[in-house]
Each structure stands twice: as C-alpha cells, then as structure tokens.
C-alpha cells in the first residue's frame, strides 16, 4: 500500500514511505517537520503552501508526495544561507511586508520564482505575479515594495528607501 519516495528538500535527500494519497505539504510539515510551509485552504486558492519544485513554484497542497519523487523541493527554511538572509527575506522585514506571518513563506517562495524569471518586474507584474497568494493583513502595498527591494538588491542596484510614505 505504501510507496517509497525519495525527495530532496533544501538540498537534503529524504527517503520515506508514504500512502499514495499523501499530499506533499503533509510530508513537508508532518514527516519532515518543516513547519514553515503553511496550509490556508482546501482549494489551491491561498498559496500559503507554496514551495519550489525543481525551481518552479507550486502549491504543495495540490501535489501528491509521490509526484515529487526524485525531485527537488525548496521551502522557506532553505532560503537563508550562512551569508545571511535572502534578499527577499530582508526585503519583507525592511519594508514591513508581513504582519501575522502566515502567508509569508508562501509569498517568499512565489516571489523567488517571480524574480528568477523576471529580475526587474513592474508593480503590475508583481501584483499579477503574486495573485495566486492571498494575504489578509498587509493590503499588499508593502509586499510589492519588499519584492521591488529584493529585485534591486539581487540586480546589484541601490535598494529603494524603506521609510514609510506616511505624510
């Protein structure tokens, strides 16, 4: 009944036995105890569970773990390196791109692929680019700013001001 799978998560290989119906998000959260990836809905609508699968952002609540067999998964826990925070993590912190933090890991993973494909997106491209991820707290203004900040940093340009425009 159970099936053996091998997945690489944040560069570390794991071989485990799962029921064929087990969702990838449950393997990440409950088998591997990487709880940074969250579950916010049951219809693939909210994006809180977004991870990268072979570099592409996917909603891990809509992927069976067996479909990830032999593939590479990246989660929020793998973003920061020995050199420090990923520019996106820094961007979110510096620009108040999060309140409760629940959607944040999914947003970060989605934004990572967005910037990978489009290193200098316009505001509209960012808004459409993260439209599969819901945030209930921030009103998105500062998430957009955070991604712009990270984009600038990754392009080696001066980062925009993080002072709130609150006249």
């Amino acid at each position, binding site marked *: 009944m159970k099936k053996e799978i091998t997945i690489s998560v944040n560069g570390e290989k794991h071989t485990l036995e799962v*029921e064929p*119906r*087990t969702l990838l998000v*449950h393997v990440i*959260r*409950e088998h591997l*105890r*990487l*709880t*940074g990836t*969250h*579950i*916010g*809905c*049951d*219809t693939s*609508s*909210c994006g809180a569970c977004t991870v990268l699968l072979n570099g592409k952002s996917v909603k891990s609540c809509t992927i069976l773990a067996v479909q990830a067999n032999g593939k590479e998964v990246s*989660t*929020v*826990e793998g*973003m920061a390196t020995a050199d420090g*925070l990923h520019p996106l*993590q820094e961007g*979110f*912190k*510096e620009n*108040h791109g*999060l*309140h*409760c*933090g*629940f*959607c*944040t*890991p999914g947003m*970060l993973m989605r934004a990572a692929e967005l910037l990978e494909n489009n290193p200098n997106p316009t*505001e509209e491209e960012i*808004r*459409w680019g*993260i*439209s*599969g*991820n*819901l*945030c*209930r*707290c*921030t*009103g*998105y*203004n*500062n*998430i*957009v700013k955070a991604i712009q900040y990270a984009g600038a940093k990754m392009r080696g340009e001066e980062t925009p001001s993080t*002072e*709130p*425009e*609150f*006249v």
Partner: protein
Amino acid sequence: MGHSLKRKEDARFIQGKGHYVDDIQLPGMLHMDIVRSPYAYAKIKSINAEEALKIPGVVAVVTGKDLEKYNLHWMPTLMSDTQMVLPTDTVMYQAQEVAAVIATDRYAARDGKEAVMVEYEPMKPVIDPYKSLAPDAPVLRTDKEGKKDNHIWHWEVGDKEATEKLFSEAEVVVKEQMHIPRIHVASIETCGCVADYDKINNHLTMYMTTQAPHAIRTVIALVAGHVGLTEEKIRVISPDIGGGFGGKVPVYPGYVIAIAVSFLVGKPVKWVEDRSENLQADSFARDYHITVEMAGTKAGKILGTRFKILADHGYTDAAANPSKFPTGMFSIGTGSYDYQTTFMEADAVYTNKPPGGVAYRCSFRVTEAVHAIERITDRFAFEIGKDPAALRMENFIKKEDFPWKSPTGWEYDSGDYHAGLKLAMDTVGYDELRKEQAEKRKRGELMGIGISTFTEIVGAGPSKDFDILGIKMFDSAEIRVHPTGKAIARFGTKSQGQGHETTYAQIIAEELGIPAENIQVEEGDTDTAPYGLGTYASRSTPTAGAAAAVAARKLRDKARKIAAYLLEVSEDDLEWEPGKFFVKGAPEKAKTIQEIVFAAYTNHPQGMEAGFEATHYYDPPNLTFPSGAYICIVDIDKETGEIKVRRFVAIDDCGNIINPMIVQGQVHGGLTQGIAPAMYEELIYDEDGNILNGTFMDYLVPTAVESPSWETGHTVTPSPHHPIGAKGVGESPTVGAPPAIANAIVDALSPYGITHLDIPITPFKVWKALREKGVN
C-alpha cells in the same frame, strides 16, 4: 515613540520559524475531524458510527448524546445565549457540527468522517430575517422554554419623540434602506487547537487560536468546572496567530469537543478546521439590515438622524460585544457631525444560519454604523445639490468643541475633522478631480468621487460600562527589569500580526529609557501573563499600551528614589531625561536607568522593597475616538459595469503614533479589508439555507490585483486622557473605506438617478442598475 523601528517578531516569520497551532505535534497526539450537517434545519434521526469505527486508526466517534452524559452538549455564548457543542436531536444551520471523529492521524480521521452515517429529517428552514419575525414563522429555539417567536432582543437609544417631531417638520428628509452583508474574516490561518489533558496531574494545557486567552480560560472553567477542570488547572496558550480580525474571539464547538475528548482519553487531541469549515461555520460578521434617514435644511445643515436595524444573528446570539451593548458601538453612528437629535433602534432575530455577529475588524459594529451615516450624508448632499465635501465641512464638530457630547451619550475625546478632510482633499487634488468629472459627464463617461469622514470608537473600555460575561474590560502589563537592565514585559492582550512585540517595547523604552531591543515582550500564556481581555476592537494600544506606560512610570518613580539614595540628594533635586536621572543644575551627577536597576538588586535603600518590577491593570477613563477622512476615485465602464478604483487616499488620525511603519501597515491592511466587503465579499445563502460560496474558490478575498495601491497619511490629535495620547488604529480603515468606495460608485452613477447600491457593489449590480435606468 514616532520611530519606524523594524519589527522584532519578523526574524522568525521570514525564516519559517513562526509557531502556529498546527505546528504543534505532541507524543501520542490524536486528530479530530468533524461531521457536519448538509441541511440548514433538520431532525437527527440516527447517527451510525459502525463503519467509521472499523477504519484503521479511528479510535472514537463522539456525538451530542455522549457529551450530554457530562452536561457538555450545550455551552454559553459570550452574549449569554446558548450554543450547541454537538446536537442531540436537531441541527440549526448547514455545516453545523454533528459528530466528531477521533483518529491517530488526520487522514484516518477524514476517512472516518466520510463513513459516519447520519439520517436526517429535513425541515423548512427560516433564512430571511424579516420572515423570521412573521407571526406564522416556526419557532426555531424550541430548546428555550416558553419561547414563542424568533425575536432575540430589542435595543434603542436617543430621543424618539424629539426625532419624530424633527422629521415631521424638517425641510429635507432623505432615506435609504441598506443591507450590510454577511461576510467572513477568513484569516489565512483557520481556527484550531491542541487540547492536552494530563490525567495524572488533572491539568489541561490548551493551545489554541485565540485572541483572548485569559477570557477563554475563565470560560472553560465555567463550562467544565463541574467535571473538575477548575481555573488553576487550566493553562491556555495562544501561540503565533495567523490573523484574527475578531474571528478568533469566540469559543467554537470544535475547541470544546477537543477538550472533552482529551479529558476522556487522556491524550492530546488536535483539531484544525479546513477553509471550507471555517467559512461555513465560524463566526460571521455584519448582516445588518438598516433603514437610515437624515433630516436637514435646504441650505445643508444636518439636524437629525434615525436608524432602524434588523440584525440577523443566525441560530444563537454568539457575538462578542460588551454585555451592555447588544449592538456593540453602533451608537457612534451619529457620525462626525454637530447635531443633537437622533433615535436608533434594533431588533435581533434567529434564523437557520451560523452564529456569530461581531468579527471582521469592525470595532463592535462600527462598520455598520459608519456605512449608514456616511452613505446617508452623501444622499443628503445629493438631494440638496451640494458638494459632499463642503456639506461635511459645514457640519463637522469643531476642533474647539471637544470633548463633545454625542446625542447617544458618548464623550468624543478629541478630533480635528476639518484638518483631516482638508489634507485628504489637497492630497487627492479634489477640485481638479471635480472638474475632470464634469468634463467626463459631458462625454457620458462614468467617474465617481467618494468621501467618508468617520469617527471611530475604540479602547473598550471603562469598567463602569464595559464587561464581557461580567469580566471588566481593563487590560494589563507587567514589567520585570533584570539586574543587568534588560527587561521582560507581559500583557493580557495577544498580537495576531499587529506587532505588539515591537510597539509595546517602544512604549516602555520611551518611558524608562531602556532600549527597545533590550525589552522582550510576551503574550498569550495564561500561566505567565497578567489577566487581560485580549486583542480585538482596536483595544490593545488604548488599554494594554496604556498599562505599559503606567507600569513603566511606577518603575520610574521607584528609580527616582533609588537614584536619590545613590546620589545622596533629595528626590526633588532630580530631573529625568530618557534613560537617566540627574541632579538639577549638575547634569554630570547622574545615574543611568541601568545603574539604578542594578542597585535595586545589589544596593537598594534599606526599607525599600528589592527588585525592579511593576504591574498595572489599566481601567480607561473613557474610550478613544480615532477619526479619518478617506477619498476614493473610481472609473466605471458603462458597457460592462466594471469598476476601477483609480485612487484611494486615506488620512487617519489615531492620536500620537508609536511606530509609523506599523500604523501605516495596519491602515493598508484595513483598507484592503474595506474594499473586500465594498466590492467582493458576501456569504450568500439560498432559501433552503445552502451556502452558495463557502470555499475560497468563490468567496472572493482580494488579491494584490484587486487591491489598489493605497495612499496614506495622517493628522495627529492626541487623546487627552490616554497616558501617551494614542488612540488605536487597527480597524479605522475597515470602518472608513467601504462607504468611501460605495459613495464613489454611487456618485459616478448619480446622473442616472441612482442613489444607493448595497455592498458588495459588483460589476453586475452596476450593469443591472444602469440598464434599469434605461442605459444601454
């Protein structure tokens, strides 16, 4: 104060190290899933768990009959009504809990849920609240002895006679009937818990998504005290919360069932609802049907208002208003305008819909009140042909008239409404936009400008009037400063993203001179934090924030005594500047707060209590009254009804600002939760009580695409009674934004004689309204 300190809590959230309820995994933990009713109103004929119990991993199926043995099948609501934990014979709304399946993992629990066979005898539900009051309507709450109708309560305030006289004689009377739709907070984290009962020590640890952990502990003790779970045996821990917005204030049946099961089997039990359950069964918000009228002069003087409300509460009143206020703070609905005649009345009814009634960032029904007053103010301006901004400017309460007594009994603490609206008009370029609009109208194009100038009422509240289930609505802070001058501070509130770990530290830093990075803020553990009523209704800064300042000032008084002792001078000879006491005229003779605190543990004056700790329970003398002036610009496609929010300028006045970055963030988020009910969100039920949009596929939470780029700003009118002059801000934008958007859309459509559209105003509603007016 006033510094945009980056948030202390962010480090864990951006690295996946937040700690939410569903992240908790305890040894031997069981998982619970809930069987729910497909019918809105039905008799339960039988529940058969035989097949479910055969599924590997399923350990138990719990029904209302099981809970009845322990008298745990009903529980009180926060409004002193009663709510089923699990039904013994009747279900009252679609998606109501019917039975709970307990299993060793979540997949087995879900399998078990599918296998429980329930036989129902459906009955004709009552869905329309007006029909619920009809004489031939079936009485829904047959559990209440002697109940002969579906009426819950009547409430009124104001002068009925004077209002009737005014309306019968006034030059101008305008009237609209409006529905403030039933909506849902839909925080991205749903509700859940891990109930961990330790049989040996007779002790319950309850990890749960609650905005009010202390109040919940007391409620659990009141409900379960008779089976031995008394309050000292209960520890409620509210870990990181993934958004609350009021939806995590009530006690839901799932929590109680999890406790009961853990109590019976002696193992931890996890219950985390999925999104559809969350939308379909958890506390809804709004659902007020309001008839609002305004009387005034042809010249544009507002003379009075009248409000009549029908409140649809679902099958029980499970709102979470302060006890004396069944309509919450609706009586703020006279607005920002200077007049003294009003009458408001409300009736609440039962229907076969889920209970709730307060959640969604509304400051206890202020959203409904502000929508009504701001819509009718525009309606009045339209009626007499006056610019709605000019009409507001002429009717505002003047800055010098504060504190101002409202006709419903409130004392507005402070405000400068003229300055707020002027700043908003200057920022948006109001006069130019009106010219542009006039040009566009000549060409038949639809452009609208909407204003909302609201007064909020937050910070519940003064103990003489405010309690929940009898517990007074103070809040608390406890500060302990360690010998090396670093501190831990604990509070009775609970952040759900508001940034308390940062802002509370800033308040204490301001008062004591200890750097904010050296102050650890802790909330959400009832074993360690002082008692408080929690975080909702924008009350944390007005209550616990005040408590932090007062507790810090107690410590400063002690610091002065110690400094005087160390410097061998009299206390009166000392002066304070943040971080140190120095001798007047001799600033080089000084003791820093760190030196003073160290002395409190190592060299304190004889006769003085050692240590450096203070606690304060803050009982506010009044509520605080934030305000705002919002202007929205929309462009509407006449062919399709599509509405584009071109600009939205929000000027808020929340008194003194602790952290501008966080305040602005609160405003951004609140505005998006304002556009949501204005244009997108509504829980829709058909006449059989079926919810038509109970998932995220069709309940439209705005994404970054629907959410405009918000333009924000502020004026500062400090609260005269709050220790640091702050007022609270979290809900102002949710309160103020919907009428600004609705007013803009109606303004765009006004050339066609359209005077009102109910929110959410969708393209279809606009298209239909235009077609009804002959536009093709």
